[in-house]
């Protein structure tokens, strides 16, 4: 039983994550001055859902905070509060607190209660400032869904259809019923509210009464012809007959939220008097065959309603809603609907398994192809044909599975908003993070692994990149700093850039620090680019004051390592006084790698293409023999160790000097720019390989990062270039310090 509960709780937390994302998206849009009703509704809905879920799990802290948050957002929703810059800041902070509370409820790190209290107080201040009565949340049912959500888009090319609607009630009601008539004003729809909410509220009141029946009549007499129809005008009014047992106060409660934008009246009437209530013969906008999809908003408790109403129901129920939709003129509604319909949760492992199987399929099909080439015969041509059609199929399947694993970077990018906000509040700077290309899709594993490096880089950008406000103003820049985080696809890779409009890298200071820390020699002559790259060196930190945020000495080098371990590269462009741009180029997936197939010591191996700088033949005049038998090669004046690959891996004996003389070498580079030349027997091909773990069933091999399976089904090793270079450089370091020129960076 508790297991079930845990499962449900997990689902709740997953939903929380989604809601928080929705909230983040909405609030960001609002901060950008994009305050349409749908956005406000979405924000409200997100907080509301979290509150509702939390309440059912008894997560009190979360409920309490979500409640006050919701109440303050309601002010925004009803237009009482104008989303000023300060108010949005409060909301954003409240969102961070809310997500902290969710983490806490999940059993994660505890929250800073002071911060919660502070945010709580700020929200209350907002609620109290609007001067309006507290929203009647206890009266209005909380589970309403704003209308546009549920509606199937209604094509506007319909013709007015005259519909005969006879709403005569022949109900033998003895007690005087409560008759509520209401007519929403245009302003009500402008706020994102809807007559449907009122109807649902009334319905729920009736539901509390034993055998209560709700009769609804829509007065369409105010509706002009389609030709004259103004989509933003409210034209409909409703007349609702409630059982007498429903108290007048509770009806008032339903109208509490809209009392200022909706004319309404409550009267007591005998059943006899209310009969001829406008048998409207009016052009009613009827929805095309969609009604099945549209939920019946009023019908649920009204099943026992008079037959006349029932008969007219399909048209009757859909019509007001469809019109409302048109009146509200809300273009955001239809796309939201489709977005929601198209997602299911699948365990990542299953997709991984699928991916593995597809990898197998690709390999199997490659080996069949290889076989068919060998086999001569009459069937040859047909065989080749069917293999090639299978080939395109497998490729399609591979792409499809990759697409399943793909995820927009939005989830990471939105988390960065918070990082920047917190960094701002710590550094007392005002920085706006602009996002671009959040829809760019990358492999899911990559998305997860991007969070840490990006967090670090953005903190750095706020802390070191953007100048202090005084300095910015002095430099003639706006006080508010801007950071642009963008993502996009570039030739089969994903390119993420972080661009700030700060002061740029102070190369003078970077160089001084690097010299002071012993990272470079005092007399070293470095290019601008090399100096920029010094900030990635381990143990480097230029911030004069070690702040809470960055400057712990582990910074950019960790970032660079992380990006490299993902098979990516980092580059920096910096213009003094104008800002710095970091560009991260990453592979689209971690499951496949672009590699160079080489032969060494009778084995075929794979070298990741990202680490290969160039390939060339050795000129024996450039090779220098070291006393212990090692070799150094000078390539255009740069010295680097020469690694005979097969011998280095213990697969063959060290080659003779003669064998080295005309060998093929690959110049490879590690993350910090250290280079080495690998001697190989032959370069065979360039190909994409599927990465397979070798450690799973064996141990770690030094110099080898993973393995792959070639087209012929044989295993091939993927070389760990940074490790190979590291070993080689360490060897040389022990021998002669002079050889370090060009290796250090």
């Amino acid at each position, binding site marked *: 039983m508790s297991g079930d509960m845990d499962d449900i709780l997990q689902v709740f937390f997953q939903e929380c994550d989604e809601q928080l994302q929705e909230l983040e998206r909405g609030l960001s849009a609002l901060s950008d001055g994009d305050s349409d009703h749908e956005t406000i509704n979405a924000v409200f809905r997100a907080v509301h859902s979290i509150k509702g879920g939390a309440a059912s799990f008894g997560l009190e802290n979360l409920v309490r905070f979500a409640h006050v948050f919701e109440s303050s957002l309601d002010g925004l929703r009803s237009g009482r509060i104008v989303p000023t810059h300060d108010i949005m800041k409060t909301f954003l902070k409240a969102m961070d607190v809310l997500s902290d509370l969710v983490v806490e409820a999940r059993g994660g790190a505890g929250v800073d209660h002071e911060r919660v209290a502070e945010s709580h107080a700020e929200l209350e201040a907002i609620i109290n400032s609007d001067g309006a009565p507290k929203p009647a949340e206890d009266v209005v049912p909380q589970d309403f869904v704003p209308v546009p959500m549920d509606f199937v888009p209604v094509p506007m090319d319909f013709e007015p259809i005259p519909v005969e609607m006879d709403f005569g009630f022949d109900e033998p009601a003895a007690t005087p019923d409560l008759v509520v008539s209401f007519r929403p004003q245009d302003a009500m729809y402008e706020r994102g509210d809807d007559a449907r909410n009122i109807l649902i509220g009334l319905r729920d009141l009736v539901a509390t009464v034993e055998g209560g029946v709700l009769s609804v009549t829509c007065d369409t007499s105010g509706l002009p012809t389609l030709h004259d129809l103004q989509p933003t005008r409210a034209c409909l009014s409703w007349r609702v007959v409630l059982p007498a047992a429903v108290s007048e106060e509770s009806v008032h409660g339903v109208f509490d939220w809209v009392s200022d934008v909706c004319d309404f009246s409550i009267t007591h009437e005998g059943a006899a008097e209310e009969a001829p209530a406008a048998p409207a013969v009016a052009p009613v906008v009827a929805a095309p065959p969609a009604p099945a999809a549209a939920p019946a908003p009023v019908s649920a408790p009204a099943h026992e309603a008079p037959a006349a109403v029932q008969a007219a129901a399909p048209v009757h129920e859909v019509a007001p809603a469809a019109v409302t939709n048109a009146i509200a003129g809300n273009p955001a509604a239809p796309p939201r609907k489709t977005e929601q319909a198209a997602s299911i949760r699948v365990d990542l492992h299953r997709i991984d398994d699928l991916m593995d199987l597809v990898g197998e399929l690709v390999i199997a099909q490659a080996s069949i192809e290889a076989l068919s080439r060998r086999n001569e015969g009459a069937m040859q041509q047909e065989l080749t044909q069917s293999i090639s059609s299978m080939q395109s199929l497998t490729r399609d399947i591979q792409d499809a599975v990759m697409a399943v694993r793909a995820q927009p970077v939005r989830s990471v990018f939105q988390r960065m908003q918070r990082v920047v906000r917190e960094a701002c509040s710590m550094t007392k700077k005002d920085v706006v993070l602009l996002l671009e290309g959040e829809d760019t899709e990358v492999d899911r594993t990559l998305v997860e692994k991007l969070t840490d490096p990006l967090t670090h880089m953005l903190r750095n950008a706020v802390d070191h990149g953007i100048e202090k406000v005084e300095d910015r103003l002095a430099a003639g820049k706006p006080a508010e700093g801007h950071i642009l985080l963008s993502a996009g696809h570039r030739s089969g890779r994903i390119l993420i850039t972080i661009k700030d409009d700060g002061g740029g890298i102070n190369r003078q200071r970077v160089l001084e620090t690097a010299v002071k820390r012993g990272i470079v020699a005092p007399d070293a002559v470095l290019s601008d680019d090399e100096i920029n790259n010094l900030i990635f060196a381990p143990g480097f930190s230029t911030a004069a004051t070690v702040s809470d945020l960055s400057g712990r000495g582990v910074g950019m080098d960790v970032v660079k390592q992380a990006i490299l371990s993902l098979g990516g590269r980092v580059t920096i462009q910096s213009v003094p006084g104008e800002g710095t741009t970091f560009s991260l180029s990453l592979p689209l997936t971690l499951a496949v790698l672009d590699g160079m197939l080489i032969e060494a*010591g009778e084995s075929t191996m794979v070298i990741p293409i990202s680490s290969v700088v160039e390939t060339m033949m050795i000129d024996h005049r450039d090779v220098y023999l070291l006393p212990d038998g090692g070799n150094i090669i000078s390539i255009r004046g740069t010295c680097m160790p020469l690694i005979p690959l097969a011998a280095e*891996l213990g697969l063959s004996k060290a080659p003779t000097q003669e064998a080295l003389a005309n060998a093929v070498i690959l110049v490879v580079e590690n993350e910090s720019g250290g280079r080495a030349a690998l001697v190989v027997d032959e370069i065979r091909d360039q190909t994409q390989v599927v990465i397979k773990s070798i450690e799973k*069933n*064996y141990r770690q*091999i030094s110099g080898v990062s993973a393995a792959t399976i070639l087209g012929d089904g044989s*295993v091939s090793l993927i070389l760990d270039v940074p490790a190979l270079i590291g070993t080689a450089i360490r060897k040389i370091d022990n021998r002669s310090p002079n050889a370090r020129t060009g290796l250090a960076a």
Partner: protein
Amino acid sequence: MTEKNKEDGVDAKIVKMIVFAIGDQEYCIPILSVREIRGFEKTTALPFAPHYVCGAINLRGIILTVIDLAIYLNIQPQADNPRRVAIIVESKNGVVCGLLVDRVIDMADIDMNDVQAVSEESSSLSGLVMVNNRMIGVLQLETVVGELVGDMVTE
């Protein structure tokens, strides 16, 4: 170890074993740890591997290493045997590897109480047992695999 516990048990502990030959010696391992038996194929040499590791093979997408049991147990293998097979086994902690043997003989029900211990438990051989007047060594799979993945089983 499980075998030890079984040995201590009073009741007969029948374990189904697969019996194979390396040279003129016979060994067995529990059949439940065997995933499949396949013909020996070309392996990919691994750098810095122990001398008894032939190399890596691809088993439908899983990369695993093959141990030459003859070298591992220091036995003279059959000369010129083109029909050597790899028994693919899976250890208790999920490591899959191949054991290269000369040939698979048959299966046998072995009562663990009949196994005579030959050395300490950490050894690769947990004991010897007589089946139909043949002396069969009971191989301690966990020790062999533990050595392969690099963390020595000390139990």
